[in-house]
């Protein structure tokens, strides 16, 4: 007989859906909670209503995977409790607070699988709060889910595979791409050759995107350091430096991102131990090959504990689901477990190659003027962080938050946490890991004040 398990899965992207599926297949009824109205996560985000575009138009080379995932979640509600448009805003012990349809539903769970995904990793530059500057992922969401370009004349800035993918998708969709400004040097791309043996399809596709952009006359420039966005009410141009020479191009929108960062707040509230990842220059929850964290019966699958992409998320979701079964005394098929872990390990090796081809920019925050906005929510400038480190002797990120309000605003440090740590470390002369990490606080996202408390055993 199946033991009485009530796993809670947070996030209905590739990891969460595969975790739910494997549990449902074992006769267990998990609760799957997701903020979006429809499953798929960001990468396979679904439209709110169907339109004239095909899955191929929306998801390109990944259309088959996207469709398979959407079909899986469409078939799950018979066997899974699925709460879309619901926010898990607090975790304490084996209880989650979930805001859904204007009510708070305090919900017990026996196992917790966090599949919270990632958002763009960003660093500030002058004018980055100007209307028309959007994250790269956001630029892609606008196109995929809403059929919109972020502007009439768009510049893509930053680094990471998404830079070229989104620029190419915009070009294909009929948008005017003014330039692709890669913050990494061209020489870094040589690292991609090492990835050819592991994932030839991915590498060649990326090269094709860049080649087609160039063939259509889109300037693709390397070693770019953004200087400022021009325009007050909205973006009118971007100014950057290339090998010390200042350049400018008129545009009305900028898609910007430097790879991705894990969404880790709930793991923190669940008490998971974090480690500092020197490659990604970020703290992330510890997890083993099965997705187990340092806390018993808490698992992480997908990009929420280190970035590895959608394919790895599907594998990790299934693996975490199997780990729940295993830990509940239902041993999974060992050959399937081995297969999932081997494939995940290969993707992780590939991920290191991508990171070397699209590296985190050196010295970005050191070059920022004091008046550049660091914290978008509380509108706090870089200079205030430097001042706190300089005159008040702040050497720890939560102390910086307490004194300056950096990271205290509505986004809870999602957009500024990376740069706040970089600025603080440089200013106080400590290493990045030594300044610590922003502690998560509930609620992890804003809640309406009229949220009605409701005790419900789900």
């Amino acid at each position, binding site marked *: 007989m199946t033991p009485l398990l009530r796993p809670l899965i947070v996030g209905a992207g590739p990891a969460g859906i595969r975790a739910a599926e494997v549990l449902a297949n074992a006769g267990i009824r998990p609760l799957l909670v997701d903020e979006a109205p429809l499953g798929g996560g960001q990468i396979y985000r679904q439209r709110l209503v169907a339109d004239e575009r095909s899955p191929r138009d929306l998801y390109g080379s990944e259309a088959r995977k996207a469709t398979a995932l959407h079909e899986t979640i469409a078939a799950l509600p018979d066997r899974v409790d699925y709460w879309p448009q619901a926010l898990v805003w607090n975790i304490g012990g084996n209880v989650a607070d979930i805001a859904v349809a204007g009510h708070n539903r305090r919900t017990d769970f026996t196992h917790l699988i966090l599949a919270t995904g990632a958002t763009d990793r960003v660093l500030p530059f002058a004018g980055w709060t100007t209307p028309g500057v959007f994250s790269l992922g956001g630029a892609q969401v606008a196109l995929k889910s809403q059929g919109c370009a972020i502007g009439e004349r768009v510049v893509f800035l930053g680094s990471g595979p998404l830079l070229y993918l989104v620029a190419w998708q915009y070009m294909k969709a009929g948008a005017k791409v003014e330039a692709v400004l890669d913050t990494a040097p061209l020489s870094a791309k040589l690292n991609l050759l090492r990835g050819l043996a592991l994932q030839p399809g991915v590498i060649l596709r990326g090269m094709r995107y860049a080649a087609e952009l160039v063939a259509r006359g889109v300037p693709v420039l390397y070693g770019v350091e953004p200087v400022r966005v021009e325009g*007050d*009410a909205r973006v009118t141009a971007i100014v950057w430096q290339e090998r010390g020479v200042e350049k400018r191009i008129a545009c009305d929108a900028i898609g910007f991102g430097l790879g991705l960062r894990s969404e880790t707040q709930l793991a923190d509230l669940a008490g998971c131990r974090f480690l500092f990842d020197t490659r990604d220059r970020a703290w992330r929850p510890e997890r083993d090959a099965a997705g187990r964290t340092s806390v018993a019966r808490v698992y992480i699958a997908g990009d929420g504990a280190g970035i590895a992409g959608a394919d790895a998320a599907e594998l990790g979701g299934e693996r975490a689901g199997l780990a729940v079964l295993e830990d509940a005394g239902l041993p999974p098929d060992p050959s399937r477990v081995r297969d999932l872990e081997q494939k995940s390990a290969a993707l992780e090796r590939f991920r290191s190659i991508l990171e070397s081809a699209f590296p985190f920019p050196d010295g970005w925050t050191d070059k920022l003027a004091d008046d550049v906005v660091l914290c978008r929510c509380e*509108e706090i400038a870089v200079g205030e962080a430097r001042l706190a480190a300089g005159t008040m002797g702040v050497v720890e990120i939560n102390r910086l938050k307490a004194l300056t309000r950096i990271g205290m605003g509505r986004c809870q440090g999602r957009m500024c946490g990376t740069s706040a740590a970089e600025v603080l470390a440089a200013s106080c002369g400590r290493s990045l890991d030594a300044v610590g990490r922003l502690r998560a606080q509930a609620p992890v996202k804003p809640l309406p004040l009229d949220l009605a408390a409701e005790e419900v055993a789900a």
Partner: protein
Amino acid sequence: MALLKRLARRDLPVIPFILDGVACEGRAGDTIMTAALTLTDQLRRGDFSGTPRAGFCQMGACQDCWVLAADGRRLRACTTRLEPGMDLRTRPEKRS
């Protein structure tokens, strides 16, 4: 004036709504962000500087796109579906 440009979904059914006191049209399946920013170029003002903002992450993380509804609610524009008759304000009302 518009920030976002529609490349697809132009022929979907019309959803009427009000933006800064003016009767406007969105499309079925629009978020508030899409409906508003295909017509205007800001969603709100910075809480302290008063500078215009139009969102950033478009996936419910940055919280930079909260827009004011006439009934006093604040709605996260990028994750909230446009509903018929919504009355939205992207600019502070002039004080008399």
